[in-house]
C-alpha cells in the first residue's frame, strides 16, 4: 500500500469541469437531475481513480458525492455514491502505515476530507472557509441520531420508506468503515509505540468521547439494532412477497441489513479495543482529565442487558465474537456474584478473575445457586451458562 501521499488534489480545471455537471441550470425534470449526477460520478471517477494521473478529489467534489448519498433520490445513486466513496477512501486513505523505516510509521493526511466533523479536528476551519455549509457532515450528535433513526426505521414495517432505510444503512456502513480505516492502522502503530496520542486522536475516540453523543443511548440503540436484525434473520423473511412491485429494493434491503449488522458488530469490537487501550494508558498515567471519562462499552452493555432480558438471547446470538461474548457473560455473572464488593474502575482487576469454572462452581452448591437464582431468572442463568460453555469450549479447542 503506497498511496500517493504528496499528490496534489484535483486541479482547479478538473474540479470546475466536474462541478459544472451538477449545475442545475436548465434542468427540466428529475430524470435530468439523475443523469447529471451519474455523469458527475463518472467524472469524479475518471479524474480521481481511473484517469492517467489520478489525483485526490477536492473537498467540494467529495462533499458533493457525500451529499448525493444523503439525498435519497434513487437506489442507483445511493449505491453509486457509496461505491465511489468507498473506493476514494481506499485509494486515498486519511491514515496509513509506511514500511519504509524499520518501524512502521503512521502517516496522517490531515488535510484530506472526512465525513466527520469533530471539534478539534483541525479541519473544521478549512471547511468553514470553503463552503460554510457543513450540514451534511457528521458531528457526534448527528451520528447518534443516525443510529436512532435506524432503530426507528427497523421497527417500522411499512414498505414506503425502504429507500430511506437503505440510505441510512449504507451511510452507517460507510461511516463505520471510515472509522475502521482510521482506527486499524492507529491500533497497529500503537502496539509498537505505546503512544496514547495516536489513539487519542483517532476519529473513534474523538467521536465517542464527545459530550454531544450520549454514549449510553448510543450503545442501547446499537443493541436493539442487533437484536432487531437477529430476529429478522431468525424469522427468515422471504424476499418474495407477492404484491411487491419493486423487488429491487426489497432484495437490496436484506443485503444491506446484513452489512449494517456486520458494521454494528465491527463498531462494538473496535470500541472494546479502544477501551482496552484506554485502560492501559490510564495505568501508565498517559491520560489526563482532558481525555474525558466515557464509560467502557462493556459496562454500558452490562448495564443495559439485565433490564431487558428479552434482548439477551438475540444479543448473544448476534454477537459472535466469542472472546468478548465470554467476557460479557462472566462480567454479567460477577455482578450477581455475592462475594466481591462493588468494584471501582481502578480496582476492577479482581473482576477478571472470575472464570467459567468459578461460575459453574457457583451452581454446584445449593446455597450459592439459590443465592444467584434469587437475583437472576433461571432462564437467564441457563442461557448465559450455555453461551459461556460454548465459548469456553471453543477457546479450549483453539488453544490446541
Amino acid at each position, binding site marked *: 500500500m503506497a498511496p500517493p501521499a504528496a499528490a496534489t488534489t484535483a486541479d482547479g480545471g478538473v474540479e470546475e469541469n466536474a462541478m459544472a*455537471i451538477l449545475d442545475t441550470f436548465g434542468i427540466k425534470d428529475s430524470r435530468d437531475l439523475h443523469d447529471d449526477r451519474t*455523469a458527475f460520478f463518472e467524472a469524479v*471517477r475518471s479524474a480521481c481513480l*481511473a484517469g492517467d494521473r489520478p489525483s485526490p478529489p477536492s473537498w467540494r467534489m467529495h462533499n458533493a458525492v457525500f451529499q448525493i448519498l444523503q439525498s435519497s433520490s434513487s437506489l442507483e445513486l445511493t449505491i453509486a455514491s457509496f*461505491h465511489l466513496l468507498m*473506493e476514494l477512501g481506499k485509494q486515498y486513505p486519511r491514515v496509513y502505515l509506511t514500511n519504509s523505516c524499520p518501524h512502521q510509521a503512521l502517516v496522517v493526511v490531515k488535510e484530506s476530507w472526512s465525513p466527520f466533523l469533530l471539534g478539534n479536528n483541525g479541519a473544521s476551519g478549512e471547511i468553514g472557509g470553503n463552503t460554510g455549509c457543513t450540514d451534511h457532515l457528521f458531528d457526534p450528535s448527528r451520528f447518534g441520531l443516525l443510529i436512532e433513526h435506524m432503530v426507528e426505521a427497523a421497527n417500522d414495517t411499512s414498505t414506503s420508506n425502504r429507500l430511506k432505510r437503505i440510505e441510512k444503512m449504507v451511510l452507517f456502513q460507510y461511516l463505520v468503515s471510515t472509522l475502521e480505516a482510521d482506527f486499524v492502522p492507529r491500533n497497529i502503530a500503537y502496539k509498537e509505540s505505546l503512544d496514547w496520542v495516536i489513539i487519542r486522536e483517532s476519529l473513534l475516540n474523538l467521536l465517542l468521547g464527545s459530550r454531544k453523543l450520549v454514549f449510553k443511548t448510543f450503545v442501547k440503540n446499537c443493541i436493539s439494532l442487533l437484536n432487531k436484525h437477529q430476529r429478522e434473520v431468525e424469522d427468515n423473511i422471504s424476499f418474495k412477497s407477492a404484491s411487491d412491485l419493486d*423487488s429491487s429494493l426489497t432484495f*437490496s434491503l436484506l443485503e444491506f441489513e446484513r452489512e449494517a449488522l456486520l458494521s454494528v458488530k465491527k463498531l462494538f469490537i473496535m470500541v472494546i479495543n479502544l477501551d482496552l487501550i484506554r485502560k492501559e494508558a490510564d495505568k501508565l498515567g498517559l491520560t489526563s482529565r482532558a481525555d474525558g471519562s466515557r464509560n467502557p462499552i462493556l459496562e454500558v452493555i452490562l448495564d443495559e442487558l439485565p433490564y431487558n432480558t428479552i434482548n439477551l438471547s438475540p444479543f448473544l446470538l448476534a454477537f459472535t465474537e466469542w472472546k468478548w461474548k465470554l467476557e460479557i457473560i462472566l462480567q454479567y455473572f460477577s455482578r450477581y456474584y455475592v462475594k466481591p464488593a462493588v468494584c471501582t474502575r481502578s480496582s476492577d482487576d479482581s473482576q477478571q478473575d472470575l472464570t467459567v469454572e468459578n461460575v459453574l462452581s457457583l451452581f454446584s452448591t445449593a446455597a450459592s445457586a439459590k443465592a444467584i437464582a434469587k437475583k437472576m431468572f433461571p432462564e437467564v442463568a441457563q442461557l448465559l451458562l450455555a453461551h459461556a460453555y460454548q465459548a469456553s469450549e471453543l477457546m479450549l479447542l483453539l488453544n490446541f
Partner: protein
Amino acid sequence: MVIDDPLDFEGEVDPLLSAPRPTKRKKIIGLDDLLIDYCAAGKDELKASAAKSKGRPNGYNSDDEDKQVTEKEINFCKFVDDCEEKAKALDPGEDVPLWGQKVFGCQKSPSILNGTGVENCQLLQSFCGDEHLGFDLEIEQGEGFLEGMLMDGWLLKLVLVYGSVEDSIASWTLTKSLYSSNKKLQDSASEFWGSLLSLNEDDKPLVNFGYFPSYSILKGAILNYEYLNGDPCTNARTSETAVAGTSNDGPPQNITAWLRIVSACCKIRQMHPVFSTSEAEDLLVIVISLFLDRQLEGLLLIMGDCLNSLGLYFNTSEWESSCLMVAESISKRVRMDLNCLRIVDCITGTNDRSKFLRSQLALQLLKNSFGLKVANIEKILKSVTSVNVKEKECNFFMLYLYLVLMDNLLFSSDAFRNKPAITEAWRNYLRNCSMQIGCTDWRFYASKVRNKASYLLQGVISKKPGGGGSTSSQ
C-alpha cells in the same frame, strides 16, 4: 308573523356584513393601479403586458368582466397546451427507457435438496463414538443437526480446529449456499466457503480440502436460476415488464452467494486454478451482464468485486485475447440505448485490465452499431463524425451514446494515444458539437450532447500531451 322577525333581523345584518367588502376591494385595486401607473410611467418592456391587463382591475366590480378574465384564463391554458404539444412534436420519443435488461427468466421453485447422504460423514460419526462429550447431540436429525452447526458457525470452527474438511461436507455446504432458500443457511454456507477459499499470509489455505467448486457446478447453478443465455433480440424485455410480471420474476435468491463464491475461487488461483481460460471468459460475460438487471442494483459492490477478481484471474498474456472475446459477446447482448452506457460505466477502469476491457467493449459496441465487420477505428471515427448536428433529423440520442463510447474507446486505455490524427479529428468534432448546437436548441437530447461534448472536449485538451493553450483561441 313570528317567523318574519328573525328574517328581518338577518336582513339587517346583511348590509352590515357586505359593507366592509368594497373598502377591501378598493385597497386591492389601488395596488394594481399603482402597478399600472408604474408600468405606464417607466418600464417600456412592461407596457404591453400592462395594456393587456388594463381591463383587469375593473373586472372585480362586474360579473361581465369576471367572465372576461376566465375566458382569458381558458385561452391562456389553451395556449400553454398548444405550446407543450408543439414542444413534444419537436422532440419525438421523449421517453428514453431507463437502463435495464432482463437477465433472468422466471424462477422455478428451488429444487428439493434432500437425500444428500451427508449425515454419514465422518465428522458426525466421530461424534457418535465419543463418550466424553458430556451431552447429547441430536445426531439422529442428521442433516438438520449439521445445518444448525453451520448456521451457528460451529461447523467452520470445528473444521478450522481439525485442519481439514472431508469432501462430503464441502460439497454439501456448497450446494446449500447455491441452492438453499433459507437466507441464513445460505449466508453461513457462503461464509464457510469464503473461509475455506481464503489464504493465510504464506499463501497457504487455512484448511486442507480436496473438493473445489468447479465451472460446471457454478454454471449449472446460474442456469438453474434461469439465466438467459441468448441474444437480446429473442428474450430481451425492459425492466418495466419484468417488474410487472409474475411474483416469480424476482432476482434469484442465491445470486449473492454465487457471486461471492466465484470471486473467492478467483483469489486462490495460485493454489488451485479452478477455471480454465475459456471458462473464466464465460463467467466474466455472465457477471458483466448481471449489471444490466435493475433488480440487482443493490449488489453493485459485490458484482464489482467479482468482476475485478475475474479480471485478475487471467494471465497477462491471455488477457488481451480474452478481453476481445468477452467484449464481443457482451456487445451482442447489450442494446444500443442507455444499457450500453450502463455497462461501460460499470467496468470501473480502476486498473489497467479494467481500462482495456472498457475500451474494447466501447469498440465492439460501436462496431456493431455501424454494422462493421472489422473493428476499424478510422471507419468508426468517420461514421461518428459524419453525424451533422445541423441537420433537422439528427438523432441526438444516438450521438450522445457515440460520444460517450468514443471517449471510452480513445482514452480508457492508451491504445490510441500515439495517433495524433485521430485525437485531432475527434477534438475538432467535439468542438463542432459544442459550438454548433445552440443553447436554445430544444430538440431531444440536443442540450445533453452539447454539454457532454464540451465536457469531453475539456478532457481531451488536458489529455493531449502538451496540449491546452493552443486550442483556447478557437
